[in-house]
């Protein structure tokens, strides 16, 4: 490896970690309120496409981000209606939603490409970087600290965590569990979409089918390894990001070996970390729909 590799490596790590951090925070938020957020992958994918389309059709990175957030909110509301209001099974709905999202994004991507060929090209680099740190990276780190403070130091945070620990107790304490969980899941989905935007607008600057490549699931793993604590979850994301950065670096340096082996690194790393992380104590009531009789 060449001289001075550390700074670029750290930057690459953070770049790869940023989309994961947004998604991991969204998982932490939703699951602390008691809703399993498997749909994070699908929302992230939709957010990634929406962000890119926003940039292409309106010509501004920030409009792209806003559009991505809007799509996240709508999808979040849809997920909330199905898994909280009706409610249907959270895991099954999430999985089906992810498959749905994969198909729909690929379809819309092709429709958009017919309208405007620029959709398939690279979009401009997002402005506003300082020392190579993009606004997304800074926002991800700031949001991490904010989320931790919000969850563990504020009144609303306490109420949200109560809902995740025991929805019936929370209801008995006067919280409207259904409405609140719907709002939280909607907000969480917006965050997941932002993770997608961070991927397309902030990093790779293009879209391909299934561009998220299971990053939403890695974020789920990060939330799990991070014991549903925003700070630890982000730390896990950075670790997984390092795996991805390592994969690129090794791919560039390695000779003879098929590059696909290096691309396995982040996934193997995730599997390994989840395996050794041990069993965390999840919010006690997560995954159980709340039904008022």
């Amino acid at each position: 490896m060449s001289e001075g590799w550390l700074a670029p490596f750290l930057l690459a790590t953070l770049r790869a970690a940023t989309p994961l951090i947004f998604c991991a925070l969204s998982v932490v938020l939703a699951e602390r309120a008691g809703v399993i957020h498997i749909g994070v992958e699908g929302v992230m994918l939709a957010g990634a496409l929406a962000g890119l389309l926003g940039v292409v059709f309106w010509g501004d990175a920030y409009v792209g981000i806003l559009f991505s957030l809007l799509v996240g909110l709508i999808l979040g509301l849809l997920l909330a209606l199905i898994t909280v209001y009706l409610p249907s099974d959270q895991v099954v709905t999430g999985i089906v939603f992810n498959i749905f999202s994969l198909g729909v994004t690929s379809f819309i991507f092709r429709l958009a490409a017919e309208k405007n060929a620029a959709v398939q090209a690279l979009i401009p680099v997002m402005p506003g970087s300082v020392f190579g740190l993009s606004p997304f990276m800074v926002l991800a780190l700031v949001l991490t600290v904010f989320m931790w403070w919000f969850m563990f130091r504020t009144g609303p945070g306490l109420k949200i965590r109560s809902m995740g620990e025991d929805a019936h107790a929370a209801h008995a304490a006067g919280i409207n569990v259904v409405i609140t969980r719907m709002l939280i899941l909607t907000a969480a989905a917006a965050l997941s979409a932002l993770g997608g935007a961070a991927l397309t607008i902030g990093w790779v600057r293009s879209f391909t089918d299934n561009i998220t490549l299971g990053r939403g699931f890695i974020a789920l793993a990060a939330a799990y390894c991070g014991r549903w604590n925003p700070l630890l979850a982000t730390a896990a994301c950075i670790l997984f990001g390092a795996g991805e950065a390592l994969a690129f670096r090794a791919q560039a340096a390695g000779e003879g070996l098929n590059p696909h082996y290096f691309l396995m690194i982040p996934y193997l790393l995730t599997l390994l970390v989840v395996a050794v992380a041990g069993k965390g104590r999840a919010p006690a009531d997560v995954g159980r729909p709340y039904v008022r009789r």
Partner: protein
Amino acid sequence: MHDIISQTGLSKDAAASSCAVEMTGISKSFGDVRALDDIAFSLQAGEVRALVGENGAGKTTLMNILYGIYAADEGVIRLGGREIPHSWSPREAIRAGIGMIHQHFALISNHTVLENIVMPLLKWREISPSWKSHAKRVSEICREYHFQIDLQSRVEDLSMGERQQVEIVKALYQGAKVLILDEPTSVLTPQQTEALFRFLLILKKRGHSVVLVTHKLDETMQISDRITVLRGGKLIGTIEREQANPQIIARMMIERDWIARLKVAPLPDSAAVVLKVRNLSLNNEQGIRVLDDLSFHVRAGEIVGVAGVAGNGQVELSDALVGLRRVQQGAVEIEGINSTRHTVLQRRKAGLVFIPEDRHHRGVVLDMDIAENIVLNTISEKPYSRYGVLRSQVITDCAEEAISAYSIKTPGCRVPVGNLSGGNQQKIVMARALLREPRIIIACQPTRGLDFGATEYVRKKLLECAQRGIGILLISSDLDEILELSHRILVMFSGKIVSDLPVDRVNLDQLGLLMAGHGRNNQLD
């Protein structure tokens, strides 16, 4: 206790004020079941009211409606003369000064005491609550009512009695003027119960109203001013305590006379030991010692009661005996054969059967039918299956036989067990346990959640088994049950057996003290 009883009767100014709560024409159905039918219930300020009835009478449902957990199908609720809005929820009930303490506490066990007490009062926009001033005011309430709870400890580390205090403080801190307690004494020792009643009378003196939801007649008679009886979702009536006695209330509750106490037959000295436990120790998943060096035995035809406040190792003991958990130390002998390393199946074949505490999760498979549940244990054995294929007719016959022998109320033997009442489900558990004449029965809370009739049936059945020479280990938190059925009583406290005495040498007070960890009896076998 006498000074407590003499304090009952409504105070004058309380009687003069209007009704604190007035519920009229309340009806509520769950699916096809009519849980409440045209109930009227009113409560005055400064009154302690007992709401009694058998399981399923609708007591808790009625109070849940008042507290906004359920919405009534029909009926009107007035608080202080004003009708409540249609969108009634716990939040509004709390604001209106109603506090409810559920049988299963509505506490977040992972959060601290203070967080639990303050959380219901927090508004969503309160970003940084002033914890210090909250803590100060909560401490004042604790001091005022002589509660000793550490506000910073986590609820999961507290005993059941302490958790109840947290619930009470929570309700008071929310400004509750009407306090509803659902079966508050089911998790308490007799001493804790007495302390709770003393507290309720203080509360009453200060003009609060209390509703005590219970099916225990003794406590009803002890502290209530008036008694309301529900039966099968209907209001039977409300009577003044002075005009009531346990017989009258019991008759209102069950339409028949007070059940005569069961009598356990004396045990011959020559009875052989069927279950022997030596120096049994077990650590739980967290590495905490939950069973600590237990030694005891059960003889043929003997009923050994295990008393103790829930959570002192009873569940772990039954699991260890049945073979569901591996023990760290010690031995379990079934009829003289060391079975410590044996599986559940091997132990059952050796004659040890299990009536589990958690009927729904371990006792029966709710979605499977009665016949399937009855042969569940023996399904791979003749005559119920041959070459791995079930013999439907044999199983049906067997189930029909059990249904008539145990008088299980059901339209047929192919009905899902989930459709039956708790008592009938427990009869199925017993029928299965007794399908092959066992040598030992481990019975955990066999009558929990059952009504009078079913309770009596299960108890009689256990006595009958003992008479046939089956050894029974009866683990129960119902002290009356243990005193009534057992030959010998073990008391468990924090994983240890702190007392092992024949039934004629213990009394209720002594048991209560031992269960609370006070005093130790050295006469262990």
